């Protein structure tokens, strides 16, 4: 069974690569290349997979998952400028793809330590664009 918990946070970012020209950055990242930055209401959906516990009837304690997400995602990222305040985005462009993988890296070990399997991390950058990450490898 799949179980999904959703959290939201608001944060600023821009997407640029320092070795590229202004035109190349605009071509690659569009409006997101504006060096002054802009922001989104990011929505993160974390999906766990496993059988319901025969006693509790739950796949995972959602209170515990909420706490993991608060500590690893919302607390460090909400109302922050990702490029300046949230490593590794000081050296990695905070695209939705990189953000999804970073959240996978933060959440997966905790879910695994609790004996459950992380199935997917979905990051909504806007209502019309989202990314699904199914693992740590590129």
């Amino acid at each position: 069974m799949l179980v999904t918990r959703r959290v939201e946070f608001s944060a600023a970012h821009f997407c640029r690569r320092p070795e590229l020209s202004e035109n190349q950055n605009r071509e690659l990242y569009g409006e997101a290349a504006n060096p002054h930055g802009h922001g989104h209401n990011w929505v993160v959906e974390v999906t766990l997979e496993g059988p319901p516990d025969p006693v509790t009837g739950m796949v995972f304690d959602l209170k515990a998952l909420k706490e993991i997400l608060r500590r690893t995602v919302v607390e460090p990222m909400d109302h922050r400028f990702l490029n300046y305040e949230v490593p590794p985005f000081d050296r990695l462009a905070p695209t939705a793809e990189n953000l999804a993988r970073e959240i996978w890296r933060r959440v997966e070990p905790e879910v695994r330590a609790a004996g459950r399997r992380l199935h997917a991390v979905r990051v909504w950058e806007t209502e019309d664009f989202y990314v699904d990450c199914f693992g740590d490898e590129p």
Partner: protein
Amino acid sequence: MMRVTRRYRFSACHRLHAPGLTPSENRAAYGQCNNPFGHGHDYLLEVSAQGPLQPATGRVLNPAALDRLVAHAVLEVFHGRNLNAELPEFAAAPPTSENLASAIRRRLQEGWWEAFPDGEPRLARIRLQETRRNSFEIMEEE
């Protein structure tokens, strides 16, 4: 491995009517969608592409490239149209959302290589929402 999804919107009108069925069979099969004058929807289309995260860009694809393909292959073709009267796909087949999703998939596949000549990412999924109460999804084989 990562999957990126963009959402697009278009509006079109249609009438569900299968030529091989009698009038009463058509009414039984399609209900009010068989109304001879037709009706329309604001369709919501999700197109998902799957591929490796490119370390140099932090991207699976450039969304602008997908936008150009979808605009050309889908939105310019279907938006503001009468599906029965104007689309060759539906000259004989009824424009159900199942058939419409298949037609969209075919048109995207035809333009995919030109839009993404590197072979990555590949088309992974199409989800077509006809109304808030129904949606239709085609997953490509792994």
